[in-house]
């Protein structure tokens, strides 16, 4: 396979034009940290964006940063930290799951729409992309959005590009909204009899004005491995609720929530370390099996897990107040059963994140789309990439 390194959108366009003429399919790659995500396809050519790096413009008081697509997340994080700002959706690092190193590039983060624990309260990567420039699979340059926070001019193609896994266009000059980092944070740790009780306790905590920023649920065994105090009674789950903000506010909110729910607190360093593990799915020791990511309504999560536990030996934990479940197992057919179970609930999806063997050959990693939604997806793909040149087949067959 040929590797072509490009350093700007003009060169990207040239590669795409050549590929159109020769009918060659192109893989879009930057650092490759998430290459294992999605369907496995073969391409004629790999276009490497990792040379397209650098921060073009960063105005902290405007809450706006514009960067080249291949800028490493380490560099982005450092620049933001210097101005005490952040990408509020918390970029996760899945290198642990993929046996890779490096935390990826901003282009990869946007293309995969991956977000961390704070997604629950402040939104996903898709909520922070303000604009971009790109070359479509037609070999044409176009832009959408802008470099300001509030903009409804024309279709919001930023939403479409986020999470499209490079199947529509090759982006550069990515503009994102930034936010000030919280001055400090802490966690409240509360026990619950079981998963269902944990979800309902969290609902209770969110029905107060005490503003938790994230909430996760760990089975007692995982909680113990993560270094949390061992449960005294017969509680099987541990709830972790994060509070962020200025110190006086956190102290006050922690007191209030503790009065309601009991439990004990974790100070900033321990709390931050725990949330990083939750964010990066490092609670599963060394994953040797498949890892699935399931998103559903929080209150559906307990019955989903119960159903699956009936037939499969699983290890799991939940984030997003129960609405995100990470599940690992060496059991066959887990994906089928997950999707079948979701269909009986109020909706959701199961994505195969880590494939430890050949699971992808037996089940599509992305949840299949039913017609007419599939047909619409294909028309959208064709509107940007009619010859299916860019990352074709990465998400769904033909898409």
């Amino acid at each position, binding site marked *: 396979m040929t590797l072509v390194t490009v350093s700007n959108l003009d060169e990207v366009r040239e590669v795409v034009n050549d590929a159109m003429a020769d009918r060659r399919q192109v893989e879009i790659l930057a650092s490759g940290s998430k290459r294992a995500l999605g369907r496995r396809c073969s391409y004629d050519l790999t276009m490497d964006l990792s040379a397209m790096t650098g921060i073009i413009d960063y105005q902290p008081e405007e809450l706006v940063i514009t960067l080249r697509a291949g800028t490493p997340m380490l560099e982005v994080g450092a620049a933001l930290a210097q101005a005490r700002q952040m990408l509020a959706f918390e970029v996760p690092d899945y290198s642990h799951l993929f046996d890779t190193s490096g935390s990826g590039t901003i282009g990869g983060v946007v293309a995969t729409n991956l977000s961390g624990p704070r997604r629950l309260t402040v939104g996903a990567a898709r909520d922070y992309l303000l604009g971009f420039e790109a070359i479509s699979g037609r070999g044409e340059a176009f832009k959408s959005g802008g470099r300001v926070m509030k903009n409804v001019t024309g279709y919001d193609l930023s939403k479409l590009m986020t999470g499209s896994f490079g199947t529509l266009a090759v982006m550069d000059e990515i503009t994102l909204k930034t936010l000030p980092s919280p001055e400090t944070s802490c966690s409240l740790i509360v026990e619950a009899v079981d998963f269902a009780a944990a979800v309902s306790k969290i609902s209770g905590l969110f029905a107060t004005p005490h503003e938790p920023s994230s909430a996760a649920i760990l089975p007692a065994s995982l909680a113990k491995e993560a270094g949390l105090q061992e449960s005294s009674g017969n509680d099987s789950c541990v709830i972790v609720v994060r509070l962020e903000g200025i110190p006086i506010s956190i102290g006050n909110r922690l007191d209030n929530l503790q009065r309601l729910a009991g439990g004990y607190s974790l100070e900033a360093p321990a709390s931050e370390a725990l949330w990083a593990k939750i964010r990066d799915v490092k609670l599963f020791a060394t994953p040797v099996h498949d890892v699935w990511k399931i998103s559903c309504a929080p209150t559906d999560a307990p019955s989903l897990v119960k159903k699956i536990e009936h037939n499969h030996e699983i290890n799991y934990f939940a984030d997003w107040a129960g609405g995100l479940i990470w599940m690992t197992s060496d059991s066959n057919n887990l994906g089928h059963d997950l999707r079948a179970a979701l269909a009986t609930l109020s909706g959701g999806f199961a994505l195969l994140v880590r494939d430890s063997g050949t699971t992808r050959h037996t089940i599509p990693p*992305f949840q299949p789309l039913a017609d007419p939604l599939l047909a619409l997806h294909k028309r959208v793909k064709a509107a940007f990439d009619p010859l299916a040149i860019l990352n074709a087949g990465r998400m769904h067959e033909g898409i």
Partner: protein
Amino acid sequence: MLMPVPDQSVIDKRDSICAKLKTLVPADCVVHSPESMRAFDADALSAYRQLPLAVVLPETVEQIAELMKWCKAAGIKVVPRGAGTSLSGGALPLADAVLLGLGKFNRILEVDYDNRCVVAQPGVTNLAITHAVQAAGFYYAPDPSSQIACSVGGNVAENSGGVHCLKYGLTTNNLLGIEMVTMDGEILRLGGKHLDAGDYDLMGVMTGSEGLLGVVSEVTLRILQKPATQRALLVGFDDTGSAGKAVGDVIAAGIIPAGMEMMDGLAINAAEDFANAGYPRSAAALIIVELDGPEVEVNVLIERVEAIMLAAGASSVKISNSEEERNLFWAGRKSAFPAVGRISPDYLCMDGTIPRRRLPDMMVRMSSLSQKYGLRVANVFHAGDGNLHPLILFDANQPGELKRAEDFGADILRSCVEMGGVLTGEHGVGVEKRDLMDIQFTEEDLKQQQRLKCAFDSDHLLNPGKVFPQLHRCAELGRLHVHKGKMPYPDIPRF
């Protein structure tokens, strides 16, 4: 404003079309007498009026689907309409199009406190969502000033914001799911009570698509707990430049207020005459900053903001010490539009966004344009996010003044783009800004947007004549030009 030439052959068939429509929806859901259609002939951009071919007010999603299917087959255009409060003419009827009103979709279907969301029909008003959940301490965050009237379906179509979207986001950031009907009559569900399905974010592109991609037939909205405390500061400045800088200083200090609004001298005085809110009449600029959250936090942040304002040269600072006082601070701002309506027979409300640091330049530009056109302008800004609402004062009874006001407005929007901003921050393009799109976008940008449109509506039947200055046929847009003459590649029509 030139609208697409109506298709006379459709208009000639009006009677038989109305008869057919009555078989698709209950007969009393079709409105076709000119007198009763008057109520639908414009939205809040009332300078433009047009009677539709017929008004259809369906009652079920299946009826919408049947209607769309038939219109598609018969080649008849459809204009969706919520509450008709659009300020950009998005819901302006067309003489050869069915106006599809969502007014009968007025029920809240589910309140789900445990998952913190509400499922509602699109015709429910924005404020009704908050009313339905406030007893349990919840509210729906996006709060356009039109919230007592505008519909949540219209909010999705326009991606509406409000004074609190600086901290809580626009509609798109508070929307979890939609059900929609395509021009082909297909009913699709996108999103739901879960987050971030691993598909193309079609709900994201539907949001803000101004009724051009599909009809929203149901919404699932995220609700939040009301903050424990809300307090506001009212800050006067003697010059707008320092005021603009102060706004940036607050954000640079790591504070994101719930809202941060600014008004200029003319707006301050009009509002004060109207509302007696205690605004400093001699100030050149007024900033309202609202902070919300736990009481201890708000009290600390109020002090920090006050210090920042004084350091930036504020000439007066007042801090609200009661809900009554906080509401009074807002009373002037919230009545700014009607207040300006009293000092001028007519006004045009513009809606561009600029990078916040360009605010002082923009003020200078606006006053020189004001001189050039001989028209006054009052300014109300969502300063926190750089969204401007200049109100251009004119008298429609004076020959030529409307045109002059429109030209003035176009120049302001041109300046917004020139300063690195955009044509519209929250009111939408509609017909009002349609012909200015090429200031911000290249032809290729606009063509790519229309290709997306073609994926949803291959015959341009849904709300045509809005948003895009030029309509290209989908077959033409889909054509490919393969470069370098490497292969004698035939042009491929895609759609």
